[in-house]
């Protein structure tokens, strides 16, 4: 190697080395392990793809071709992450698999985001998305981003009761309020390791899975009004039927005791019921006189009058994002494909519509995003605004899909 080459190599090493200014943050391991604790693992490889069988490249390609063909038959195609219109109306006929392909008429907008999205909410006439270290405001009239509020720290959740907009930032030990008039943070409050939150029942309610408590904040004063110790590690939260409902988010393979949903009475700030549910709870939502609980396999319906599960609806693998529509409960899930080492596999995201009254699956809508590159559960949040679902998608490029479901709910 010449002196010039050595000099150039040394310069490259100095410059590229200078790009990296530190070691991994101290809390990153714990954050990863905590999320792993909540993240379901894939089942072991199907026996026909196990070692010693079906491992020849020819068969692998044939399998891939077959899967792609099946997707094509299901009426879904993806080119460069964009939907290809295969049906002229949003009420295209279900395929043999029961999937209805989303069309350009169904997907009204796709809004790319910076970083991973964590949560989406509707309030104060806007759509609010927590992603990366910021909150983005979307105008539902135009489906365009109109403001971005930098929080400075990430892992945020966002919630609204229709008028107030509040957020948590887990990494910043922060709970705050956003002023929709100025698109700025108008109140800040330190809360130890907050996770999810809900607004209503005369309070802002913040879960703390690491601390084992639910923190109640008085929205008028912006001060902590109560700290409620629960029976586990509360993370998920919903408000309805004059109660606050919380549950631990834990993957089924983590084992341990059965999962349960705790019910809190806001009048006394005490637990009044603990309801057993299948292990692997991923989301809570209240609507139509019931509490809806998504688990790794099903969506459970809890009757508040009986404090028990009264129905289980199979809504697809790993349903996560959950929202209450005008007529249906909508559960988002990612079907099949995941990240490397299978980057070539592509499979759709699914929006499953469950009839709120009959507690039965009525529609499965396929969204054309590339599930093979999803992080976490793929669809971390769904919010409803009129006939539109705003679906946060954490797959490759973080984005929000606006999906028109009026045709499906107007059946």
């Amino acid at each position, binding site marked *: 190697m010449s002196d010039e080459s050595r000099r150039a190599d040394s310069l490259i090493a100095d410059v*590229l080395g200078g790009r*990296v200014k*530190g070691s991994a943050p101290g809390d990153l391991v714990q954050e*990863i392990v905590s999320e792993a604790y909540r993240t379901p*693992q894939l089942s072991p490889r199907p026996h026909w793809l196990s070692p010693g069988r079906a491992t020849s490249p020819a068969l692998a390609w044939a399998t891939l071709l077959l899967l792609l063909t099946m997707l094509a038959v299901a009426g879904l195609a993806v080119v460069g992450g964009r939907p290809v219109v295969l049906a002229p109306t949003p009420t295209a006929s279900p395929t043999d698999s029961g999937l209805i392909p989303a069309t350009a008429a169904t997907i009204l907008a796709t809004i*790319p985001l910076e970083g*991973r999205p964590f949560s989406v909410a509707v309030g104060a006439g806007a759509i609010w998305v927590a992603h990366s270290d910021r909150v983005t405001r979307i105008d539902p009239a135009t489906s365009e981003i109109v403001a971005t509020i930098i929080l400075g720290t990430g892992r945020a959740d966002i919630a609204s009761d229709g008028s107030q907009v509040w957020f948590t930032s887990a990494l910043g030990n922060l709970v705050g309020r956003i002023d929709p008039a100025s698109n700025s943070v108008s109140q800040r409050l330190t809360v130890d390791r907050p996770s999810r939150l809900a607004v209503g029942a005369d309070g802002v309610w913040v879960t703390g899975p690491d601390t084992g408590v639910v923190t109640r904040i008085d929205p008028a004063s912006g001060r902590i009004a109560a700290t409620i110790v629960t029976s586990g590690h509360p993370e998920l939260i919903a408000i309805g039927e004059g109660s606050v409902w919380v549950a631990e988010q834990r993957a089924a393979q*983590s084992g341990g005791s059965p999962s349960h949903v705790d019910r809190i009475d806001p009048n006394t700030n005490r637990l009044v019921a603990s309801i057993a549910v299948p292990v692997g709870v991923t989301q809570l939502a209240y609507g139509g006189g019931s509490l809806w609980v998504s688990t790794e396999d099903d969506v459970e319906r809890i009757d508040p009058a009986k404090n028990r599960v009264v129905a289980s609806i199979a809504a697809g693998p790993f349903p996560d994002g959950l929202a209450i529509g005008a007529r249906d409960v909508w559960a988002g899930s990612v079907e099949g494909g995941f990240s*490397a080492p299978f980057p070539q596999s592509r499979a759709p995201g699914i929006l499953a519509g469950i009839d709120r009254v009959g507690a039965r699956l009525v529609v499965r809508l396929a969204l054309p995003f590339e599930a093979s590159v999803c992080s976490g559960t793929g669809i971390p949040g769904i919010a409803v605004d009129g006939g539109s679902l705003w679906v946060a998608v954490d797959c490759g*490029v973080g984005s929000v899909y606006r999906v028109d479901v009026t045709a499906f709910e107007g059946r």
Partner: protein
Amino acid sequence: MLAEAWLLVTDAALVRRAGEGDTAAFEALVRPRIDRLFRTAWGIVGNEADARDATQEAFLSAWRNLPRLRDPDRFDAWLGRVLLNACRMALRRRGRVREISFDALIESGHDPIAEWPRADRAAEVDAINGAFERLGADDRAFLVLHYVDDLPVAEIARLLDKPVGTVKWRLHNARKALHRALKEEVG
């Protein structure tokens, strides 16, 4: 402290335990690797926030897919590819990558990097950083592993699960791509 209790357990055993849903075993796999992966990610994506996201995504993707990892001894190679994929996604999210075509590279018998126009130190640093930002994730990865992590070719080959000859060729091409990008950067 939790991870220290696993010191006497082999990595392959930890991988198997983690693949059965054991988060303590998974933590014992994460701790000794996180600094290296985080630094590699930072070198590739260029900022701490994206590096954090990419590192987290890589480990969580590994966690989810662990039950399907057939050979526990190849965990590090597999994890390296998963991290590279996560970095690729981070760059796609930012949309700032302008891929440099290998076809357009100037073939030369000389070391292309050595032929850079010399300038003052600050200008050189800026130009190299700017040129690096023009590269794709794969080229960045080879350069970071070689220049930042100071890994020999054989170790890069093991981490990325590629033949040594392929790594040499890719590293050579990455240097050429950097050269090309540098020429565009300095006009």
